[in-house]
């Protein structure tokens, strides 16, 4: 089968790989119909996530058709068209029982900090991902969900990560009606977080980024205020000035390790890989939020230490909430939102690219070429 093959930092290609097999009675084999490149895939692509091994296939946002099931799979049937949440969750451990499906304790032997994630290095379990024609899906009865009749596949594929991550970013902010919410990052997740902040009753939503086309998209889609930090002398001062010098009620870091805006953070976190990423957005979030405010983090960072102004967290009495999105927990509500037209995920998709051109897809997305917001890879069988 065709599958994306990681060859080293900034190098990926399409290759023929062996078909995946059922390795556990709760496995399913799925023929992929849509597979996205995620902003967090860029951390792998740039070589900043430890234990990203050459030869691995990335991809944690995908839909597909069930081709084969293990003997303990009862809910899914061959032929079901499913969306597959990016978390691999057993559903039985104490953490899954608390709805912490992103923190499953039975899916990632290599690390205790995070549960298994499809195609996301051995630090997240060593699973090949969905940027391929076929993929092995463990615990097939737990998180994978049959796509509701009539739902557009492009909507479905974004329910595997982008929508729940954006929604949870807003949810973790504990937004109260009338709150001012600042979202750092106008990538797909940041735009979705801004859109979802309104659902929690925000009174004002502000997005900060530096790419004009994304800021314009956020203004129209979320809809919200959106500012280019390069045109602001200091984004923190700007947020203070526009909130009567008190700071925002809630700040959301929707960027993570690839953040621009600080030469020191970029050098240490992205060029020299001396910390778990460039924490510029998080730095701004901590310093822009009001005293006693909440910082919600969904941007992904590497597991090593990262420079953040922790002293200000203490002195301002900030609550930090963070996690990988718990997709299974959120899906019922988010499917309702999509079906009711409250959220329109597929509007984020700007590029449909053949799986065979995966190298170009990564380049376009990582270098923000051609006004790219969200690229979707289309395997050959899904294009016929």
């Amino acid at each position, binding site marked *: 089968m065709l599958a994306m093959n990681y*060859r080293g930092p900034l*190098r990926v*290609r399409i290759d023929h790989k062996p078909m995946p097999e059922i390795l556990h*009675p*709760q496995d399913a084999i799925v023929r992929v119909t849509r597979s996205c490149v995620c902003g967090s895939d860029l951390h792998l692509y740039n*070589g900043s996530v430890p*234990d990203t*091994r*050459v*030869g*691995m296939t990335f991809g944690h946002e995908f839909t597909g058709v069930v081709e084969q099931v293990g003997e303990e799979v009862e809910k899914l049937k061959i032929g079901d068209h499913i969306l597959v949440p990016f978390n*691999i969750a*057993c559903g*039985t451990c*104490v953490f899954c*029982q*608390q*709805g912490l499906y992103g923190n499953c*304790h*039975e*899916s*990632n*032997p*290599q*690390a205790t900090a995070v549960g*298994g994630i499809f195609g996301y290095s*051995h*630090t997240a*379990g*060593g*699973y090949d991902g969905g940027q391929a024609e076929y993929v092995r899906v463990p*615990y097939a009865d737990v998180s994978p969900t049959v796509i509701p009749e009539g739902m557009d596949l492009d909507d479905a594929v974004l329910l595997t990560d982008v929508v729940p991550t954006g929604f949870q970013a807003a949810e*973790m*902010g*504990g937004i*109260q009606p009338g709150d001012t919410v600042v979202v750092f990052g106008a990538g797909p997740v940041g735009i979705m977080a801004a859109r*979802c902040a*309104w*659902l*929690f*009753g*925000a009174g004002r939503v502000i997005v900060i980024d530096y790419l004009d086309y994304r800021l314009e998209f956020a203004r129209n889609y979320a*809809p919200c205020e959106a*500012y280019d930090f390069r045109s602001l002398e200091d984004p923190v001062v*700007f947020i203070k*000035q*526009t909130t009567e010098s008190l700071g925002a009620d809630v700040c959301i870091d929707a960027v993570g390790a690839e953040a621009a805006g600080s030469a020191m953070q970029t050098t240490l976190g992205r060029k020299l890989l001396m910390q778990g990423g460039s924490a510029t957005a998080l730095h701004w979030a901590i310093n822009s939020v009001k005293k006693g405010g909440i910082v919600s983090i969904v941007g992904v960072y590497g*597991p*090593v230490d990262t420079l953040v102004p922790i002293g200000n967290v203490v002195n301002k009495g900030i609550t930090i909430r963070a996690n990988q999105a*718990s997709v299974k927990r959120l899906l019922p509500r988010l499917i309702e939102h999509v079906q*009711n037209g*409250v959220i329109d995920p597929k509007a984020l998709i700007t590029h449909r690219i053949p799986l065979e*051109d995966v*190298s*170009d*897809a990564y*380049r*376009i997305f990582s*270098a923000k*070429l051609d006004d790219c917001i969200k690229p979707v890879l289309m395997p050959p069988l899904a294009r016929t």
Partner: protein
Amino acid sequence: MEHIAKDPSQIKGWGVDADRNNDPTYPMKHRNNGEHAGYSWERPLQQPITVEVLHSNERPDVTSVFGTSTPPLALSGVLRRIAFRYSESSYGHWLPLMLADRVSVVEGVLSDLKHGHVPNVFAERGWKAEWRHNRIGLVRRILVRVVLISAAVAYLSSRRAD
């Protein structure tokens, strides 16, 4: 300073998920203290361990399922085995893994050559897309590198001549 005034209640879906009692919110709100009982849940059947699986020393054993994508191999594998002697809290864990990742890039090239495949680094780096969408930027970047390399070569040649 631009301040876009708007009536949020006119935005579709405004406030539909608002909940004044939503604090403390996820990830705390479903807390059930189940972890106080330790590994008390009925663990799923163990996936047969048919490849080498390194596991964090912060957990007692391999999880019930695991990925088999790319088992540790060669020199990078040696480094990864060393890394897993240390906890996730230790640089002794992460630094050898980062080094192993770089070593495995070289091993990947050697493996390609061994199988008669010369990696097309330009295609792998997506230069086709760059050429299509950012031709001037690509040409500029190539020229800068050519100038820098030429300058370095010229400097080293002149030093050797001295």
